[in-house]
């Protein structure tokens, strides 16, 4: 048995001994503690599922990956791609609840190379209230380069990004349940910089607002 394993086993055994000891002294605490552990378990499972979901969104971007030259790159809030792009087109989506416009732009700056260089389409979808939001969340970290994380001053958030369900439980549930928002309207992108970025790279930009 290696040292780490030994410490884990020792910690588990002591925790069980403490819990059993506690219950024999204060039996009324049992339901409370049980609820606590059940919640902890749920949080743990939720966290794993969110991470899995996030990393599956990041998968296409990995070095040597086979997904390349897609027709559409969809970034932003929870929008159902089937409602905005033709079924025959290829796409990659990077979505998270309440992702703002400027954060979506930063993610676009990190991911645009996955698009077809001659016919690529960028779709950004944000809700009205997040139109000028530049607050990064734990859901954005997997798509950012480590030098950018440093430059943006979000190293602490980056460390916390291993625990999205703990930091952002509600949004985590929305992401896992794929709760897409409805009633998206296509309109002009309010940020000129994004339009210029896309024009310079020959990408068509569509902006959706909710």
């Amino acid at each position, binding site marked *: 048995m290696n040292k780490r394993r030994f410490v884990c086993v020792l910690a588990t055994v002591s925790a069980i001994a403490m819990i059993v000891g506690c219950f024999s002294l204060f039996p009324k605490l049992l339901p409370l503690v049980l609820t606590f552990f059940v919640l902890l378990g749920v949080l743990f499972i939720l966290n794993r599922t969110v991470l899995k979901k996030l990393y599956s969104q990041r998968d296409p971007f990995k070095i040597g990956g086979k997904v390349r030259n897609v027709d559409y790159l969809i970034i932003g809030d929870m929008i159902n791609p089937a409602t905005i792009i033709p079924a025959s087109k290829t796409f990659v989506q990077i979505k998270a609840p309440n992702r703002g416009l400027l954060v979506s732009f930063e993610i676009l*700056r990190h991911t645009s190379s996955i698009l077809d260089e001659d016919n690529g389409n960028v779709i950004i979808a944000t809700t009205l209230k997040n139109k000028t939001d530049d607050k990064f969340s734990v859901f954005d970290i997997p798509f950012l380069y480590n030098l950018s994380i440093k430059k943006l001053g979000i190293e602490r958030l980056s460390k916390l990004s291993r625990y999205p369900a703990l930091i952002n439980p509600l949004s985590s549930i929305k992401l896992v349940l794929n709760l897409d928002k409805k009633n998206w309207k296509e309109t002009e992108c309010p940020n000129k910089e994004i339009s210029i970025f896309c024009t310079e790279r020959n990408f068509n930009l569509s902006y959706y607002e909710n």
Partner: protein
Amino acid sequence: MDECLIFGTGASAAKDYDGLKRVVSCAATCGIRMFDTAPSYGVEEILAKVIFDVSQEKGLSREDFIIQTKIDAWQMVEGNVEKFVDCALQKMKLQYIDNLLIHWPLPDFLDDTWNKMKLMKKSGKVRKIGICNVRTRHLNLFDKRGVSPDIIQIERNPLRTCEREIEFCKQKGIEIQAYSPLCKMDRRLADSSVIKKFSEKYNKNIGQIILRWHLDTGVSPIFTSTKDYRIREYMDLFDFALSEDDVAAISALNINYKYYLESCLCPGF
């Protein structure tokens, strides 16, 4: 400079002194004189020592070798590029670096880094300067701003032929180097019926046909291998040339596949 084979020391290369010495020695015996490295490959110092030792053993001098290294993205961000180059020269015990390239054209730091590199070239610390991972979009922009690299290094292989970049560079007299020239021998190349056909026709293996295609299209491939026999095989391609039609048939395999997605490593690419 004429197209030649360049030996790379990136991710797939040997990283320890003995491993690197074996392949560099083999490459040097086969006539390879140009070696590509970067701070992020973690072998700058070892490579320089290996080259020094190999040159002594083979009766060659420093001038016989071309050592190419890079300015990494983090170094551009830190900003003190001259200091990093001085440090590299000291570590590598070199008087000058033959080729110094910007590894990733980080938009916010490109101008500053380039200006410093130009000064280093003027002072003789560096012989040639260049930029990796650029597309025609960048090259056009550089051209407008009077930035003229001596060399560009791009990911290129039959799955990604970069025709526009090649044409641009040929017009401007810029040396073109192709990294991942075999696309790490991707199955789509290894199993390609087109390349297999030429392999039979010219009696060369798939790798040799692809490397020859690079040379015949005016590009110097930067390949790497941990195997001596492969290095020897890949150097055995100067006794034939592909016909124009065969070059075109290989170029037609292009699907613009990128092993590395530039924007992930160079935000704002």
